[in-house]
């Protein structure tokens, strides 16, 4: 059950021109057509509560949009007239009709529907049989307002993760995704989910398909088979632009224009995201990566670490629902890497969903809520502790001053020990079912046997151990 609200938009019939009155105007919500609006008519749109951009493609230039439209339900935040996107037909028409000012325009309206009813959106969709409503319902839940009033970062009181968790949506849903390049398989039959506000690590050796996965989910390349939903939108050629509006990707190399300043680079990308007055956003993004004082420096003069930070600032510009960071610390020195780590930790605290590909297992262990290990196929996915428990048995490491006389007999008397081995003289690894139960028993047994015990500790397997275990399994499996 998802909470929805009805937005009712009416078009007043005051326009005098016959040609204008006769035309139907298309209504789009967050970029998708949801219905049409004839003169004097009313359109109802089911939306998930929250802020949405309702766009009406009107025919004439509307000097007083407030007088043209009524939001009968929902609160209008603001109106904005802007030229409709350029097409050859419109450009040609501009040339002919420039003098009489019959310029085509879009009308942009920001609306906040009242949270009124609680209905199952899918049921409503089926009942209404409306493709338009279906689109609105599918796209709306993860919609972040993309107007100039949107802050760069979510506030502590209103984190996007919490909001979307309420709707039960995942930021990323990948099902049986496969990508072939000719006869070579980049990745095969990969399935996983990433929740909103999660930092998800994507690990694997070189050529495992990590970067190809990022490029696929970022709509740069098409999957060969399988499906995915990115920020609530099904991955398809038709939805490419809408997905790219909602995600940002930082490739391994930040790809900055070295002859432009930091600010000019960000201004360019703000423009590509369709942001008109982006000064505040740019300043916020630069401050977030501690680059406020380098704003007017040429990017060509920055160190690799600073360029990486500019790349991160660029990914923050569009207030993305998901950030894809492809090996953000590759080639950085330890200090620069630490700075990037701190930035990612800061973003995680602010509830940003991050998809992080990395070779560095310590980095993944430090930063990620969950990790996936890839080697063309998905080998495992889960929390680091879960993976350790899945792959390695729990064990105690016992160190004694001198080697035990008969360790086999001694350890066989302790029921919680499943098996044991000696790595070195006076050093024993005991596989146990529960270390908390086994440790006191082992201690008593050792003391009873007169052994001088130096230490008894639970062995800790790192993510690195998990990784090597899985990758080595692949290597073994490929051996003839």
């Amino acid at each position: 059950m998802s909470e929805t609200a009805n937005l009712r938009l009416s078009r007043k019939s005051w326009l005098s021109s016959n040609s204008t009155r006769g035309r139907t105007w298309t209504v789009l919500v967050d970029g998708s057509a949801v219905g049409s609006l004839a003169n004097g008519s009313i359109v109802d749109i089911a939306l998930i509560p929250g802020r949405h951009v309702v766009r009406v493609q009107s025919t004439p230039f509307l000097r007083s949009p407030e007088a043209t439209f009524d939001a009968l339900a929902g609160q209008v935040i603001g109106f904005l007239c802007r030229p409709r996107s350029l097409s050859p037909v419109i450009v040609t028409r501009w040339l002919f009709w420039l003098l009489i000012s019959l310029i085509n325009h879009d009308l942009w309206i920001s609306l906040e529907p009242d949270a009124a009813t609680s209905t199952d959106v899918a049921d409503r969709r089926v009942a209404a049989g409306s493709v338009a409503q279906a689109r609105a319902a599918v796209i709306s839940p993860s919609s972040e307002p993309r107007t100039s009033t949107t802050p760069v970062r979510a506030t502590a009181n209103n984190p996007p993760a919490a909001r979307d968790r309420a709707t039960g949506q995942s930021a990323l849903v990948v099902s049986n995704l496969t990508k072939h390049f000719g006869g070579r398989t980049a990745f095969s039959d990969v399935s996983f989910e990433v929740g909103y506000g999660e930092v998800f690590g994507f690990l694997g050796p070189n050529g495992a398909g990590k970067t190809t996965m990022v490029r696929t989910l970022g709509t740069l390349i098409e999957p060969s088979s399988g499906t995915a939903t990115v920020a609530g939108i099904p991955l398809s050629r038709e939805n490419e632009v809408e997905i790219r509006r909602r995600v940002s990707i930082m490739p391994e190399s930040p790809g900055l224009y070295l002859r432009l300043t930091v600010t000019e680079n960000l201004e360019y990308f703000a423009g590509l995201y369709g942001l008109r007055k982006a000064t505040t956003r740019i300043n916020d993004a630069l401050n977030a990566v501690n680059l406020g004082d380098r704003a007017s420096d040429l990017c060509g003069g920055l160190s690799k670490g600073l360029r990486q930070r500019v790349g991160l600032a660029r990914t923050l510009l569009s207030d993305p629902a998901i950030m894809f960071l492809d090996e953000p610390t590759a080639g950085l020195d330890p200090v620069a890497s630490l700075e990037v780590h701190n930035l990612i930790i800061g973003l995680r605290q602010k509830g940003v969903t991050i998809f992080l590909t990395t070779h560095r297992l310590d980095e993944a262990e430090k930063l990620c809520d969950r990790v996936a290990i890839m080697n063309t196929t998905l080998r495992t996915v889960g929390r680091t502790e879960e993976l350790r428990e899945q792959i390695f048995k729990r064990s105690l490491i016992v160190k004694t001053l001198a080697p035990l006389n008969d360790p086999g007999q001694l350890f066989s008397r302790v029921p919680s020990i499943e098996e044991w081995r000696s790595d070195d003289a006076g050093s024993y690894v005991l596989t146990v079912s529960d270390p908390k139960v086994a440790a006191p028993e082992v201690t008593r047994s050792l003391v009873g046997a007169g052994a001088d015990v130096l230490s008894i500790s639970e062995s800790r397997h790192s993510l690195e151990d998990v990784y090597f275990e899985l990758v080595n399994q692949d290597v073994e499996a490929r051996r003839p």
Partner: protein
Amino acid sequence: MMGLDAIRVRAVVRKELLDYRRKRAIVVSMIIFPVLFLVEPIVSIFLASPSESGPALDKYVVLPLLYMLLISVVTPSTLAAYSVVGEREQGTLEPLLTTPLREQEFIFGKAAAVMIPTLIISYVVYGLFLAAVALFAHADMARAVFHNGPVLLALFLFAPLVAGWAIVVGMAVSVRASEVRVAQQLGMLASFPMIGVILLLAVGVIHPTFAVALEFAVGILAIDLLALRIVARMFNRERLVTGAKATGS
């Protein structure tokens, strides 16, 4: 062709112009070519001592004027050829393709950014040349130049059309080329058809009349628009990012 977003197109144009300005080599090369292409018209008009007069002088005047159209063809070809493959080589293409920028917007923005300085340079050079003719050329030659209204009109009207041709050809090469040097060399091929037309005029196969000029203008405009669409279709994100053709279902 889907609609173009004015903000995104403007962002591309603005950034390109800023980038040109910051790289002196681009500015210098854009100025050097037009100067080189002025030599022939100057020699023809200023050093000729006409023994004939009236319409007979046209043969001395028409070709040098049309020859100047090559400025509008050659100036943009290098920049257009660099536009996509250059971004790819310097590693800036992938971040660009991750934004909501559409292929058509990218192509249109890049084309407009090359067209703007090309037209400014072309018109300034034409203007300076005509001013010099008016002031310093032999009176009969000057009269012959300024009485050739259709040719002068064609010079100014054809400049954006032939520049458009050079730009789309250059961009088509740039979209497909694997490296900048290859793209720039192939991009120069764009000037061949224009040189061919001038040669046809020189040998008298085509007679420069108003009707011919109009037919050519319409023809080139149609070809430019069609070629722009073709270039946008040739723009394949997957191939540009990975070097491999899309194999998606």
